[in-house]
């Protein structure tokens, strides 16, 4: 095997934020980055998808049926988890769901065959997912204190807790409440990172196997290719599941704030 033809495996490179051109305002560190570009692309594709289905025909066409199934899915989720008050919170849950779903899917798109158009997964940055999680958590706090005042703290005392157990239960409930934004943000961000690293590493295996020029190298490339096709299908499923889980947990947390256990 010729060592010169070997490509170095560097799976973290795809998550690097790079500036596209100079500073936006002279002398400031604000740059238009590839992350910002792909957020705009995600926004554009969401607008395209939604506007195509908002004709309000009495008999929906295919496109409108697709959009209506997504909106109906989310409003149904808010209704079953929060109850009739859930309608007020449906816009945020829908925003979170559709943004995460589209940015996950755009990151999976195979535009990378053109080198300049390598997709950037917006949700693979902890800052982005953390902002989404913090907004969800803020809604929970604001709604909870707005509706119940200081009675909101009864969230940390489950019904029928025996008195002697209170010093144990209350800190546990408090910790499990405070850790919610972190777990929301971390789950989405790590799931995206892990999937992309896996696909990337096996992509390098294919390239290195073919470059080696040996029969075993070709065999490894073929196995890796079959494996990567399966992993990509799994990743598409994970993209949808992570968006669904984020929206579902957001609606459950809002339900806690609205109804207090």
């Amino acid at each position, binding site marked *: 095997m010729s060592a010169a033809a070997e490509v170095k495996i560097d799976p973290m490179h795809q998550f690097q934020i790079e500036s596209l051109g100079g500073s936006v305002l002279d002398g400031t560190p604000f740059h238009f980055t590839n992350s910002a570009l792909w957020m705009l692309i995600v926004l554009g594709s969401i607008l395209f998808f939604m506007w195509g289905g908002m004709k309000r025909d009495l008999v929906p066409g295919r496109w409108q049926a697709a959009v209506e199934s997504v909106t109906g899915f989310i409003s149904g989720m808010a209704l079953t988890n929060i109850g009739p008050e859930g309608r007020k919170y449906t816009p945020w849950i829908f925003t979170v769901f559709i943004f995460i779903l589209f940015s996950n899917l755009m990151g999976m798109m195979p535009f990378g065959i053109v080198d300049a158009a390598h997709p950037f997964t917006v949700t693979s940055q902890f800052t982005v997912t953390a902002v989404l999680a913090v907004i969800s958590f803020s809604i929970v706090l604001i709604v909870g204190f707005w509706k119940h005042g200081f009675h909101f703290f009864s969230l940390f005392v489950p019904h029928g807790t025996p008195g002697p157990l209170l010093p144990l239960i209350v800190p546990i409930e408090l910790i499990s409440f405070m850790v919610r934004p972190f777990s929301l943000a971390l789950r989405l961000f790590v799931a995206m990172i892990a999937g992309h690293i896996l696909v990337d590493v096996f992509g390098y295996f294919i390239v290195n196997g073919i470059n080696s020029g040996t029969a075993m190298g070709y065999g490894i490339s073929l196995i890796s290719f079959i494996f990567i096709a399966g992993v990509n299908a799994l990743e598409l499923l994970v993209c949808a599941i992570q968006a669904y*889980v984020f929206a*579902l947990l957001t609606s*459950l947390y809002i339900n806690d704030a609205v109804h207090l256990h």
Partner: protein
Amino acid sequence: MDLEAAKVIGAGLAAIGVGVAATGVGNVFGSFLQGALRNPAAADGQQGRLFIGFAAAELLGLIAFAVAMIILYAV
């Protein structure tokens, strides 16, 4: 033992957690199927709870993965 070797061993040990979380996720879906096949009429209503359990089990594996990545690249 030098630091590089210790790092790689540590990352490998952290990866055990990912495998354990895999059994947890499998347990969630397996138990759901066991219940769902006994009472298919009630299965659809419990799908939300299924994914809550899935998310909770999966999170711990993802945290183990994050620890492995931090050991490998950030320490």
